[in-house]
C-alpha cells in the first residue's frame, strides 16, 4: 500500500513537470515573436499606412460594383481624413490610374475622428487612426486587370508630421 502510494506521486509529478516544460517552451517561443518578426520587415521603410485587403475581386463587367478597401495605420500615427477642416491639410484620397481597365466610379470615405493636439486645444483636426475602409464603386472592363490604385495621405503623430505619401494599392480585378 505504501509502495503503491509512493509510486503514484512520481507519476503525477512527472506529468505535471512535463506539462510545465512544454508550456515553458511555448511561452519562451512566444516571447521571441516580436524579434523574430522584426528582421522580416524593414524598420526604416515601413509605411505609415498599409493596404490590407482585398487582393482579388470579381465584378460584373461594365457595371458600378462596390468594393471595400481596407487599410491599417501604424500605431501612434494618424492621417488626415478625406475632409480635413483646413485648406492647408492634405486629405486622404483614393485614385485609380486611367489606363488600368478599371475606373473609380465613386468613393465613400469614413468620417474622421476629431483630434486636438495638446499644444493647441483650439485647433481641431479630422483624422483616421488604426484600421479604416474606403467604400469604393468601380467599373471594370471585361478581362483580368492588375490595378495599381493609389492612396495619397499625410501622416503625423502628436508632435511631428511625415511628408505626404502616395502608396500603391494592388488589386487583381476580374471583370466578367
Amino acid at each position, binding site marked *: 500500500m505504501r509502495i503503491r502510494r509512493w509510486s*503514484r*506521486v512520481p507519476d*503525477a*509529478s512527472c506529468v*505535471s*513537470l512535463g*506539462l*510545465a516544460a512544454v*508550456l*515553458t517552451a511555448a*511561452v*519562451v517561443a*512566444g*516571447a*521571441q*515573436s*516580436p*524579434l523574430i*518578426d*522584426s528582421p522580416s520587415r524593414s*524598420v*526604416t521603410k*515601413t509605411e505609415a499606412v498599409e493596404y490590407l485587403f482585398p487582393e482579388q475581386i470579381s465584378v460584373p463587367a461594365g457595371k458600378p460594383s462596390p468594393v471595400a478597401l481596407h487599410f491599417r495605420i501604424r*500605431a*501612434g500615427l494618424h492621417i488626415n481624413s478625406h475632409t480635413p477642416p483646413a485648406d*492647408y*491639410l*492634405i486629405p486622404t484620397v483614393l485614385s485609380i490610374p486611367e489606363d488600368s481597365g478599371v475606373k473609380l466610379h465613386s468613393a465613400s470615405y469614413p468620417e474622421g475622428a476629431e483630434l486636438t*493636439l495638446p*499644444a*493647441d486645444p483650439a*485647433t481641431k*483636426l479630422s483624422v483616421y487612426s488604426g484600421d479604416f475602409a474606403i467604400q469604393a464603386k468601380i467599373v471594370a472592363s471585361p478581362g483580368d486587370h492588375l490595378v495599381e490604385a493609389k492612396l495619397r495621405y*499625410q501622416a*503625423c*503623430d*502628436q*508632435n*511631428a*508630421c*511625415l*511628408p*505626404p505619401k*502616395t502608396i500603391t494599392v494592388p488589386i487583381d480585378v476580374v471583370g466578367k
Partner: protein
Amino acid sequence: MKRNTLVLFAVLVILAIFGWSGWANWQYRKQAAERALASAEHGELVSDAGGNASQYLSPLKGKPAPAFTLEDLSGKKVSLADYKGKAVLINFWATWCAPCKIETPWLVELRNQYAGQGFEVLGISTEGDDLAPDDKAAWVKEKAEIAKFVKAEKMPYPVLINGDSLSKPYGGLDSMPTSFYVDRSGTVVAVQMGLTSKEDMEANIRKALGAGM
C-alpha cells in the same frame, strides 16, 4: 494524497511564474521593437536639463552647420553664410504640418524678442512632395501656398524654399518641424525634432546666443 496536492500546487505556482515571466518578456520585447521602430524613423529624443524630452540626438550637434544657399519667395538667394556672427535658428517646416503651424507664432515672438541680440530665424519650407524640378506649374502653386502661410502667420524672418534639397546634409529631415540652433561661430548647439514648447525653443535660442540656460 496530501503530497500529491502539494506537488500539483507547486507545479501550478511554477507554471504561473513561467507564464507571467513569459508575458512580461513578450511585453518588454514588443515595447523594445516599437522603440527601435520609432528611433529608426524619428531619431532619438532625450531629456533636457528640465527633464523634458525635447532634444534630438543628431550627428550634427557640435559640428558646423552645413552651408547652403536657397531662394526666398521673391527669388533672392540667401545663404547661411550671410548670417555669420549671428545666432541662427534654422527651422524646417511645411505648409501641411499642423505642429509647424502651432509653433510658428512662438518663432515669430522669439525672433522679435531676441533679434536685437544678434539672432535670426531662417524658415525653410520643406514640402517633402514629389515635385519634379521642371514642373513649373506645380512650383508656382507650391510658392503660392507657402506665401499664403507666410502672410497668414505674419512671419517677419526670411522664408526659403526647396528645403528638400538640404535633406542629405541635414540628416534626412524625415519629419516636420525640425529645428537646428546654430551659435555665432556656426556650430550646431541644439537640434529639436517635432513640436515641444516655446520655453524649450527659448532655452535653445539662449544657448545659441551664448546666454546660458
